[in-house]
């Protein structure tokens, strides 16, 4: 560190020992807290909200399945009965359509 052409003083060791007197504290790098949190997340240490915990997700999923199953079995038999007559004729009658209704097989009405 020192220039060889410049002789060191005899009290060099003591001067060196005193060189850190009045030293200022070094500042931590910016975003250390963010780094700490990232390090904790990486090692799986951060607290996870109960909303995203697997147990809660599975419970919600199971509840949804049960509700759907219940709805399916409950309302299956109560579905509206098929109206009498052929589909096309029923449609024509329902909307008072006049004229010919053609089907694939026969002409049914003039």
């Amino acid at each position, binding site marked *: 560190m*020192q220039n060889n052409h410049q002789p060191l003083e005899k009290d060099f*060791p003591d001067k060196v020992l005193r060189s*850190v007197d009045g*030293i*200022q504290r*070094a500042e*931590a790098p910016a975003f250390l*807290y963010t*780094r*700490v949190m990232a390090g904790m997340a990486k090692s799986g240490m951060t607290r996870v909200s109960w909303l995203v915990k697997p147990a809660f997700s599975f419970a919600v999923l199971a509840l949804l399945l049960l509700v759907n199953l219940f709805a399916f079995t409950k309302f299956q038999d109560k579905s509206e009965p098929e109206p009498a007559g052929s589909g096309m004729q029923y449609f024509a009658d329902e909307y008072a359509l006049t004229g010919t209704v053609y089907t694939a097989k026969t002409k049914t009405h003039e």
Partner: protein
Amino acid sequence: MNEQEFIAALQKGDDQAFKTLVHTWQDMVFNTVLSIVQDTGEAADIAQEVFIQVYRSVQAFRGDSKLSTWLYRIAVTRAIDAERKRKTRKRLAAVRSWVGLDEKQDNPPYFHHPGVQLDNKEKAAVLFRAMKRLPDMQRAAFVLIKTEGLSYEETAAVLQTSLKAVEALVHRAKDNLRKQLANYYRNT
């Protein structure tokens, strides 16, 4: 909020309290670690590990000492552990270069602590290099007193030893440093 309430909040897992802890003590932890390991990048990594360890073990903190004393203790222990690993790697590298497996390692560059006054910069760099050769406990005591400005009593609390032991550690550290610096003086 006094210290006991603050510790209680930390133990309850209060995120805001933990954020306050990091922001309040980050410079203290970083400076302590940096003065021991003398590498900015490594010091940042170790400071990060210190706070993660604090988060993990705050439940076990009983308040027997001040929170700052406990933080200093974790920081010093982590930094010294890192230094031991570095020395082991260095010895291994020396052996590998000796048997011809690796190229010979150069001396690391001088470390310049950012808090040193400009006119003391070169002398302080020589001192920090000499500090690297001190035994762990002498180095820890010297760093806490010289770069963190702790009292002998506070240093004794951090190092969990007696006041007389700290006085002896610092005395021996200064003796060892003087010898090294005298050699440096003779060889320059």
